[in-house]
């Protein structure tokens, strides 16, 4: 799709021998790389008995949508899908808002104790639910938020890393742009929303997309904070409920693909922004 759009911009290169070799190599690597995904897809289209046949076969002998209709009738998976969506959208929104504000605040404004606070935030880069899971759980428990959406969402909303990325970006914006607006009498918030935020759009897009991916795929924290099947997110429900009594492999693969599909679609549509965002932000981290 985007390849076609590029034609007028860049003239087609000739098929030189080295390009032929590279393309063949790339194709071979891609086939190997994507074969596990193809395997999952084909398996999801087999019957449960055929899925566990020995020896295994790539393609189904008999194509069937049994597994797919089973997971939808079962009901749980649509629940998990909605939960995942609610949690990821909330987390992404809150993270974008608070980290853009904080990144700008640390980069541009003056207030007492700024240096010390920045140091604390940097130290926070080393804390994650994996590192401090048990104390974080007891904290959330104390707040009465175990087995709630709040308990799942809020602890994912304080990512020091995102603040740091945006802080670095805001530091790179020339100060004069804002100063000119101040002189013209614009208020601080107006300057932030009409000048700073539009400039930061690529970085904000990258932060948003990566936060969404991380939150959609987050397993550890939802796993710790809830064991109520009605509240689980996709990765969680698939790993715990679908794995618990005698795994139905065809259904498990169908569910797994359903968990992965939304992000793959997002990536196809936002590829350019994501790659630009990585260039902007990931490289800022070095």
């Amino acid at each position, binding site marked *: 799709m985007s*390849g076609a759009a590029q034609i007028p911009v860049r003239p087609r290169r000739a098929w030189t021998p080295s*390009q032929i070799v*590279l393309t063949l190599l*790339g194709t071979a*690597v*891609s086939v190997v790389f*994507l074969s*596990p995904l193809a*395997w999952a897809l084909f*398996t999801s289209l087999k019957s449960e008995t055929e899925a566990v046949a020995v020896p*295994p076969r790539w393609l189904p002998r008999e194509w069937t949508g049994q597994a797919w209709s089973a997971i939808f009738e079962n009901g749980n998976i649509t629940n998990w899908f909605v939960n995942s969506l609610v949690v990821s959208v909330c987390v992404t929104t809150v993270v974008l*808002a*608070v980290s853009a*504000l*904080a990144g700008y*605040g*640390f980069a541009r*404004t*003056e*207030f007492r104790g700024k240096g010390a606070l920045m140091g604390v935030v940097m130290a*926070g*880069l*080393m804390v994650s639910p*994996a*590192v401090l*899971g*048990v*104390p*974080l759980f*007891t904290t*959330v428990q104390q707040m009465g938020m175990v087995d709630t959406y709040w308990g799942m969402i*809020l602890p994912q909303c*304080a990512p020091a890393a995102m603040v740091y990325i945006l802080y670095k970006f805001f530091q790179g914006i*020339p100060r*004069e*742009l*804002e*100063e*000119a*607006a*101040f*002189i013209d*009498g614009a208020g601080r918030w107006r300057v932030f929303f009409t000048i700073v935020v539009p400039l930061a759009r690529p970085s904000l897009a990258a932060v948003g997309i990566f936060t969404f991916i991380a939150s959609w*795929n987050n397993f*550890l924290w939802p796993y710790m904070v809830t064991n109520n099947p009605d509240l689980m997110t996709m*990765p969680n429900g*698939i*790993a715990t409920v679908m*794995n618990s009594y005698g795994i139905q*492999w065809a259904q498990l*693969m169908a569910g*797994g693909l359903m*968990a*992965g599909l939304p992000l*793959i679609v997002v990536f196809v549509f936002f*590829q350019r922004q994501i*790659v630009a965002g*990585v*260039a902007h932000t*990931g490289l800022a981290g070095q």
Partner: protein
Amino acid sequence: MTTTSAETVIVPARARTATESATARRKQGFQHGGWFVAPFLALFALFVVWPLLRGLWLSFTDANISGEGASFVGLDNYREALQDDVMWEALGHSAYFTLLVVPCITVLAFLLAMLAHHIERGKWLWRLCFFAPFLLPSTVAANLWQWLFNPGTGMINHVFGIDTPWLTDKAYAMLAVVLTTLWWTVGFSFLLYLAALQGIPGHLYEAAKLDGANAWHRMVHITLPMLRNITGLVIALQILASLQVFDQAVVMQDFGPGPEGSTRTFVQYTLEEGFTSYRVGYASAISIIFFVIIAAVALARMWLLRNREEGGR
């Protein structure tokens, strides 16, 4: 980035004509920014700082999961931890995993990025192919590979005509987790490398070509040096992420510790102590030990970076 520089040229001229009151207004614009950082700091205090302090406090107590009736036990938990063979083993497993994953992912990501960068057609397709696995939840990737590794019904033994007990033998169990992780996460580092490759100015290569440098020389003398920073970043991010491995290992072993405990990672051990044995005090103590290890790695990187900057490149 390039769009901003064009606009900046005009602005300083206007700023210079500013009156004194305008200067005051300009300065005032940057004052008292506390409100910008307040929402983040509130969340940060509640869910990062407080759990850290609480964990530190709990680590000196014999608290259980209910949080009631905990009494101060001083350094007992830490003393116990230092003699806890299972903890050291779990730390060893996480370290072994890290040692295998980090170099493999770095090299693999670099090679894939070089490949995708140099094929002139269908760039978006290669990017999508190599990045796609990263978009799956860890648990889905783990389930998929758990099954690929399954003897009998799994494809891996079938395709290679071997009979390896990947998931049930302690010699292979962690290796299976490593292979799964390589496939699942290499896409992220690949994207970092690809962005870095695209950022190398083309005129460097053209100049080298004029000087008669061949492809190999161009890679050794331009590409690799230009990628030094990004390689440092990839390695650092991978070390920190790999030490915290948990998801893949537990899912592939059906939430158990693996054959003879061989895939029990450090994170898994803290959760076992906290949520299965209900020893929150002890679990907090080993979490704090883990935090210190992670912090040491992160600080070592910062120190290395600073040294390099001071030494001049």
